[in-house]
């Protein structure tokens, strides 16, 4: 399709796109200096993408994405200002820099402000192998989506409706530069196929979904398998039966377990710590999870969805453990939060980069037998997590287990506990590791939670 080719041509040569974007960033840094900033840092992105949705065998939406924008932080001594825009014309660049400088005239002194130390900038940039464009056009994407949906609808006659299958591809270049003279480009691709379905029986309709995502088209799960897995999961929600309110062991299925680990990482992140908005203040060296569990970061993983050579301060990322055998080994810090806490940055400005939950794993069937009677949580709803106190209470759906065997699905229930005893009470890790997210873990079995039904 000619339009697609035309619209993506500019970035087909990633080196050229990176060179252009680097030129823009250098120009912006130069402007900042000329406008009186004592230091500055710029983040600029240029991305294109295509997403195609098919629903009930018909093409539903075709979206072309094309985003170009930049943001600048300027420092006037220890005061700072930030400005951003989607307009990269010379006038807009000048005005945006001026806006950032203007803001910095009104903010207050903060000795923690400023660029990261120059010697922390990433010096060597490993080839992370993140750029694998997918030259799929609208017609091919629509055909894949239609086939995936057909496989889903054929899976079981109780699949009565579809919210559609989306095939999406994106490619982009990101440049970070600062007035230390560090200006580097990173480019990458991201492709996905997702399928969302509705099943029904006499009790009503239930919805579920499945997706695959990867840096390279070849790393995606087969699109027909995505449709069938979505169907299997949706059908598995039919036939819910009530359970009794009580205290039970709970097994978090992998995507839900990743969320649980995410709460812990948020609680040992710099921003929450220096604002005293965490239940894990002063937790370095303290046992916060079951011993035997290590949370290890692997930022340079080839083709990793969250791989990066440097963080959003330009600081080199490095492999390390945040939690080692259940004990906090490192906080999650960027330059600013580290200075606020009197510590060194861990190269995590902007977040974590590929986290593995490392533990002795067992087959899920074995975990279910250890559990005996309890709940497997496959879906969570709502925001009921208070990191200041660790109080956790969320809506849930899943499968009821009795004598180690799945009995029936359950929904419209809540699970509640405090994160501190909850995470210290992890008694088993599954070998069913989900590789799609930033936090990669298998199922996690916790000793006890209150289940309200």
């Amino acid at each position, binding site marked *: 399709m000619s339009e697609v080719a035309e619209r993506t041509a500019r970035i087909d040569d990633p080196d050229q796109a990176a060179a252009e974007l680097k030129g823009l960033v250098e120009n912006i840094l130069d402007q900042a200096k000329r406008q009186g900033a004592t230091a500055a840092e710029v983040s600029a992105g240029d991305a294109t993408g295509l997403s195609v949705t098919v629903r009930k065998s018909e093409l539903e939406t075709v979206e072309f*994405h094309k985003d170009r924008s930049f943001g600048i932080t300027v420092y006037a001594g220890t005061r700072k200002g930030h400005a951003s825009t989607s307009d990269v014309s010379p006038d807009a660049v000048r005005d945006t820099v001026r806006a950032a400088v203007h803001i910095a005239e*009104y903010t207050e002194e903060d000795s923690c402000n400023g660029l990261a130390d120059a010697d922390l900038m990433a010096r060597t940039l490993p080839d992370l192998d993140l750029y694998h464009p997918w030259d799929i056009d609208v017609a091919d994407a629509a055909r894949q989506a239609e086939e995936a949906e057909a496989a889903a609808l054929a899976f079981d006659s109780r699949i009565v409706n579809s919210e559609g299958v989306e095939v999406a591809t994106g490619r982009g270049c990101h440049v970070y530069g600062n007035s230390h003279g560090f200006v580097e480009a990173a480019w990458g691709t991201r492709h996905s196929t997702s399928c969302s379905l509705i099943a029904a029986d006499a009790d009503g309709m239930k*919805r579920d979904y499945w997706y695959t995502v990867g840096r390279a088209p070849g790393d995606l799960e087969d699109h027909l398998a995505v449709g069938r897995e979505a169907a299997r999961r949706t059908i598995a929600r039919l036939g819910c039966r009530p359970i009794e*309110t009580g205290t039970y062991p709970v097994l978090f299925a992998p995507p839900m377990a990743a969320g649980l680990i995410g709460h812990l990482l948020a609680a040992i992140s710099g921003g929450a710590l220096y604002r005293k908005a965490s239940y894990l203040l002063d937790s370095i060296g303290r046992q916060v999870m079951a011993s035997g569990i290590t949370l290890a970061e692997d930022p340079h993983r080839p083709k990793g969805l969250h791989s990066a050579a440097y963080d959003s301060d330009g600081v080199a990322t490095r492999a390390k453990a945040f939690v080692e055998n259940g004990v906090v080994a490192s906080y999650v810090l960027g330059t600013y939060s580290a200075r606020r806490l009197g510590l060194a940055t861990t190269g995590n400005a902007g977040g974590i980069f590929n986290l593995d939950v490392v533990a002795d794993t067992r087959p899920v069937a074995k975990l279910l037998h250890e559990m005996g009677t309890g709940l497997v949580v496959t879906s969570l709803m*709502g*925001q009921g997590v208070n990191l200041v106190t660790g109080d956790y209470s969320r809506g849930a759906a899943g499968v009821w287990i009795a004598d180690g065997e799945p009995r029936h699905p359950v929904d419209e229930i809540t699970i509640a506990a405090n994160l501190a005893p909850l995470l210290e009470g992890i008694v088993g890790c599954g070998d069913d590791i989900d590789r799609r997210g930033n936090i990669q873990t298998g199922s996690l079995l916790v000793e006890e939670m209150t289940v309200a039904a």
Partner: protein
Amino acid sequence: MTPSDPLDTARQALWDVSEIDERHVARLLGRLTARDIDTGELFFQLARHESWALEDGAVKSGAFGVDRGVGVRAISGEKTGFAYADDIALPALANAADAARSIARSGAAGSVRALARGQVPARYADADPIASASESDKVALLRRIDAFARSLDSHVKEVSVSIALNHETNLVAATDGTLSADVRPLARFGISVIAERNGRRERGFGGGGGRFDAGWLFDTDAAEDYAREAVRAALLNLDAVDAPAGTMPVVLGPGWPGVLLHEAVGHGLEADFNRKGTSAFAGRMGQQVASELCTVVDDATLPDRRGSLTVDDEGTPGQRTVLIENGILAGYMQDKHNARLMDTASTGNARRASYAHLPMPRMTNTFLLAGESTPEEILASVDQGVYAVSFGGGQVDITSGQFVFSATEAYRIDGGKLGPPIRGATLIGNGPEVMRNISMLGNDWQLDQGVGVCGKDGQSVPVGVGQPSLKIDEITVGGTRA
């Protein structure tokens, strides 16, 4: 400031600077419909935002941003093609139009009606929140409120205060002849405090805002009131006991707990889900879906409210739509696309997060009308249960109808009387069932303070909610005390 025509303002801000005029726009719409396209639309936008944040006693960060662009949409039957350009220039627009129309491969050209401007009464003033106060005044305000919050109680340990100001200029031109503009102010103030006593720490929030400039923060005691509210909530939670677990009666306070309506029925009544048959409310028009006490309305016309719209993001005037009347399902929230496919009219509920996002049917200000009971009567009618007055947010699965909302300030009810405060707990229920279980409505109807954000398909838009005090006979409370 003299009131100006938003269309003139928008043309100046969006077209004149790029030397675009109505003839260019008409030609682009013609290009969009050169194939078998039913509707084509250009959405021009200039969005400016400014924010300031105080923490640790000082205003340490401020940010300013400008986003400008055009979203181009082409619709053929149930198919939508969408592209956007981040510069308002003719070549980029032509390119986006070609991409958007590529959903239709051939066929006769569609028609383009002559552009005609509509007149709509404005629901908010033509104000620019960013320019309405000086930078020094905004910074001084944050510092004053920080000091004020700390002065209220010695247990207040951390205070974060922020102000976010937005100004949006939108212009829609479409092949159905729509030529419409809206200039929208939006301001929001927030304060979060952490109180500490005997080693226990708890957080409290306060805040408010709406479609007006920053004047309310300077001309009234509103900011001090938000600070008092945040400190009160944090101190209260220091004494909170474990929340009960299980199914029980729950009394909700007025105003913000209206997030119940937003989740339990609001999303489920958006037209897209009903056209596709994926909502628990699909095909139930005219049926009893709530107790007879309940009349639920979505109203974009309330003056100055956070969710109000003079015209929506397709250029349709904002309206008041009755969704449920005396318990009977009476209406869905429509945009043009879904209304056309369902053979009805748009209700002015088309909203988009920006020019780079497709519009969808969305809520504006959604609320439940008042009843006749006093809040005291409602409380006294419950022997053992929960009274919840503030919430942190909610979520719904529109297909099963199940929804949650998480209480951040709640109390036990013991023998018809208010008991001790309880720790935060999530409530879960099924929308239609919970609505049928509403057995008492208060005479104390309120809207929220103006801080709500609604997310759908990754797009966030500002919304309002409201309700009187009400009693739900039975809903599941997710505490830890089984």
